[in-house]
């Protein structure tokens, strides 16, 4: 990473912290504590499952909301405040600005996820008093959640590079929803014929494959996550994010900022 990208990333991280993004950790801590204490009293034999399912789902949803709502403002806010002109008047290229923003927000989400993961493991220790070897799967699920964040950050930034914040949020959120049905979309596409099949298949592969990045239920039952899936998901998230960021750079490079 060159120094200009690094500086923009660092500033984006600082700005997110200044915007009190990490305050969500308080809400998360309260949620986990309440779940750990309450569920045992209102249900039967699922205390451990609830802590893992609720913990990882909350990590995922909190992060997605942060990624979307901060990501959509990364470019437009700089334009509104006119700080973008100051940045670009220096020897900073537009692609470096986009890359720096992406790394800054991704870094914020990784730090956020790290603290929430501590909360999940803390609640798990409270409920079950010990860890088992299959709990290593929780780390894999958290890693996949981070990969989700990386893709959503890239998408939010992409929409932010040409649209208003409100529409960027709508587009990013709907792509998240559609991406959760990616497997179904491919199955539907396989049922069609001719040109429709080509178009449907193309659309199905165009949307992000979030369904493969969700292994929460699997790890909650202590089922192992295949190594191949970890490798392929990692490569997929990097390649997809790179494609989306490239599109964002292409648009942003041509955007008339006057």
């Amino acid at each position, binding site marked *: 990473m060159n120094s200009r990208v690094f500086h923009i990333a660092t500033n984006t991280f600082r700005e997110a912290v200044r915007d009190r993004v990490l305050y969500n950790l308080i809400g998360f801590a309260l949620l986990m504590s309440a779940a750990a204490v309450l*569920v045992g009293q*209102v*249900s*039967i*034999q*699922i205390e451990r*499952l*609830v802590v*893992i*399912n*609720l913990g990882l*789902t909350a990590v*995922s*949803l909190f992060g997605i909301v942060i990624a979307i709502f901060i990501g959509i403002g990364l470019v437009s806010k700089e334009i509104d405040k006119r700080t973008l002109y100051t940045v670009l008047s220096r020897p900073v290229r537009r692609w470096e600005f986009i890359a720096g923003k992406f790394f800054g927000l991704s870094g914020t989400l990784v730090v956020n996820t790290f603290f929430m993961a501590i909360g999940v493991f803390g609640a798990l220790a409270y409920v079950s008093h010990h860890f088992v070897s299959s709990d290593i799967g929780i780390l894999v699920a958290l890693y996949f959640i981070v990969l989700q964040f990386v893709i959503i950050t890239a998408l939010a930034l992409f929409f932010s590079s040409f649209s208003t914040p409100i529409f960027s949020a709508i587009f990013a959120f709907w792509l998240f*929803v559609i991406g*959760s*049905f990616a497997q*179904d979309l491919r199955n539907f596409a396989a049922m069609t014929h001719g040109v429709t099949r080509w178009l449907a298949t193309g659309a199905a592969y165009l949307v992000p494959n*979030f*369904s493969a990045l*969700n292994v*929460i*239920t699997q790890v*909650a*039952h202590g*089922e192992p996550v295949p190594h191949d899936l970890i490798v392929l998901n990692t490569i997929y998230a990097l390649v997809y994010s790179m494609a989306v960021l490239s599109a964002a750079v292409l648009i942003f490079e041509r955007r008339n900022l006057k």
Partner: protein
Amino acid sequence: MIRSRQVTAIAGTVLVCSMVSAALLTRAVDNLGPAAPLQQMLYISSPKLVKRLCLGYDGLLADIYWTRTVQYFGGTHSQGGGTYKLLWPLLNITTELDPHLIPAYEFGATFLVAKPPQGAGNPQKAIELARKGIQNNPDDWHLYYDLGFVYYDQKDYRDAAGAFLRGSQLPNTHPFLKIMAAQMAQHGGELDTARMMWGATLQTSHDGLIRANAAAHLRAIQVDEDVSLLEELVEKYRDKTGHYPATFSEMISAGLIKGIPLDPMGHPYSLESNGRVVVSIPDDLPFLDKGIPSGYVPHAAPKLFPAG
């Protein structure tokens, strides 16, 4: 500065008062009429649709549905039972969302098979649920045990033996499944078999409620045996004296028993004028077939004591 503090104090007071008033008003509105029939409502009845709508977070939703099932069952049970008409749909959605949620199959089958008002009295759905559990988790011996138990409850000893036998053939299974399969095939309806079944449940379950339930059934079996034996002795007394004993002291004097017989809870048994032997505090001994005092109406929710 002083003005700002005043505003803060006033706004803070108004905030607290308003919130307390809102809570009190909500309670007042709730008390106006019968509770909203939320528990009897299933917003989405299709398990597949629920699974699609949860955006991949099906594990958490399954936990929520399972908790709702437990609350629904407990709530209906504490109100004296009923039809439990939502029990099967809730269990079906729960297990569709998370096919590996073993407690839902285990407890669900128990809830479904138990006769009203203790449960839904729907053995067919209990069998369907246990079979679904086995289909989704073929290596879990607990589910074969549960299926066998449901068949046993229906006095279908042949299928019960079959379920226990299949469970006994799994790796890491519990050895008593093999014994149960054999016992079921030979002595299906006997009290010793029932004692063994509930004893096995007491030993293998870690759940307090299930253990308490098993302990209560074991006590009921003990009472059934005690009452049968004591009533035989009462008949002997009558053959000897021409009348029923009024108290157990008369039977002691006649040399038929050595002391006042006690039930498994430590309370003395009682004698009715027609020679029937009954427990003195039936509320403490649910699931009895014999020894129930004349005119006693059992509570809908059985009184369970923690198993030692």
